[in-house]
């Protein structure tokens, strides 16, 4: 995703074709320093927006398929009917869905947004987006770490994420980094790129609710980058007011 705003297609191939046996230093350099492939900037933005919509349809289909199978099994008597899970809850904590816990508790403490926990389908969609983000984040991290010196400590790694990763993915740096020095970091971006242009004709609240799905993949990217760096952390995105977004990173004890 580096240098996205250009119309260059994929440049010459990375590996020099048919290197002869008398290859010189030039071909070695070509392998080491091949220019990154580039892609049109706005195309990337459109693509990322569409990914969310496509996965919404796809996960709706997947969950309806699973529900149908469950229904068949119940009717055949193979499975006892599970108690129906209430779709919308206000302030009660439900132990099964941990993500619902975190969204309701965090945002209801803030008091700004009335949090509605995600439905089953939305949860499935969010998980898939996060899985994609995990893979992308890990590999971007691998690529960005090529020419830099080794990391000194965890704070250095978080700073690397705030600067290099954010610039590579979203063209700016994180605006505010806070930490309690005990493994919790809060990254605040005042104008987060994926949701900066998001609006809904139903009003601000609805736009904020829909934006949650669009930050699932960025949260996955951060989580993937962290896992490649060797830290297993939990990343929770929160949107209090568009286009501001904060990511809370919780690292396990001892790091």
């Amino acid at each position, binding site marked *: 995703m580096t240098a996205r705003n250009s119309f260059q297609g994929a440049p010459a191939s990375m590996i020099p074709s048919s290197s002869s046996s008398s290859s010189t230093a030039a071909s070695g350099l070509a392998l080491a*320093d091949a220019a990154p492939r580039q892609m049109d900037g706005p195309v990337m933005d459109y693509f990322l927006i569409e990914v969310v919509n496509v996965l919404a349809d796809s996960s709706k289909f997947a969950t309806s398929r699973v529900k149908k199978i469950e229904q068949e099994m119940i009717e055949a008597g193979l499975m006892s009917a599970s108690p129906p899970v209430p779709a919308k809850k206000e302030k009660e904590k439900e132990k099964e869905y941990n993500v619902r816990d975190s969204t309701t508790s965090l945002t209801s403490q803030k008091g700004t947004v009335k949090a509605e926990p995600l439905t089953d389908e939305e949860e499935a969609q969010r998980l898939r987006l996060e899985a994609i983000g*995990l*893979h992308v984040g890990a*590999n971007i991290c691998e690529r960005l770490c090529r020419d830099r010196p080794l990391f000194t400590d965890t704070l250095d790694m978080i700073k690397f994420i705030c600067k290099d990763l954010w610039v590579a993915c979203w063209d700016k740096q994180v605006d505010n980094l806070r930490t309690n020095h005990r493994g919790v970091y809060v990254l605040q971006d005042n104008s987060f790129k994926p949701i900066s242009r998001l609006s809904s004709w139903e009003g601000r609240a609805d736009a904020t609710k829909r934006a949650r799905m669009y930050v699932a993949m960025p949260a996955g990217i951060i989580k993937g980058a962290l*896992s490649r760096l060797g830290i297993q952390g939990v990343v929770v995105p929160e949107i209090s007011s568009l286009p501001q977004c904060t990511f809370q990173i919780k690292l396990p004890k001892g790091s």
Partner: protein
Amino acid sequence: MPPQLRLNAVAFISPQNHPILIRPFSQSKDEQLKYHYLAHTSLDVFEERVNSGTKATESYLGLLFSMENAAVYGYITPLKMKIVLALALSDVVVRDADITTIFRALHMAYYHSVANPFLKLHTALDTSGDHSALMLAGSPKWESFRRRVDEIGRAAGAQV
């Protein structure tokens, strides 16, 4: 690469100290096990270099040690992945810049292979960062990785 450099073997070791790929370039069969042993020995040197001293911020670790007929160079990425290069001992002056270029090309080859999402299609969605379980070096999926490493080896003057 000046063809006087004779590359004997390349080894990739994951951040969890599992071997990813050990590729000897020599012809004889009985030498191949030697390079497994060599990669294992170099792990100790990596740990010692990384833990000692506060100013250990270079990726390229230079000459780790030399054995009977091989000089072993090491490189550690900020993500703790290690690459080990065994060169045949000779009187030719070996330039750091050349070796660093080889290491960077190897790192890129690893990155290109690991970035391929189709290789992990059928594993769990949220794996931890450990790839070595997926990366059993003999599996046919990693063919292109081995091909890339061979390519670099050829460019560096090894006889593949």
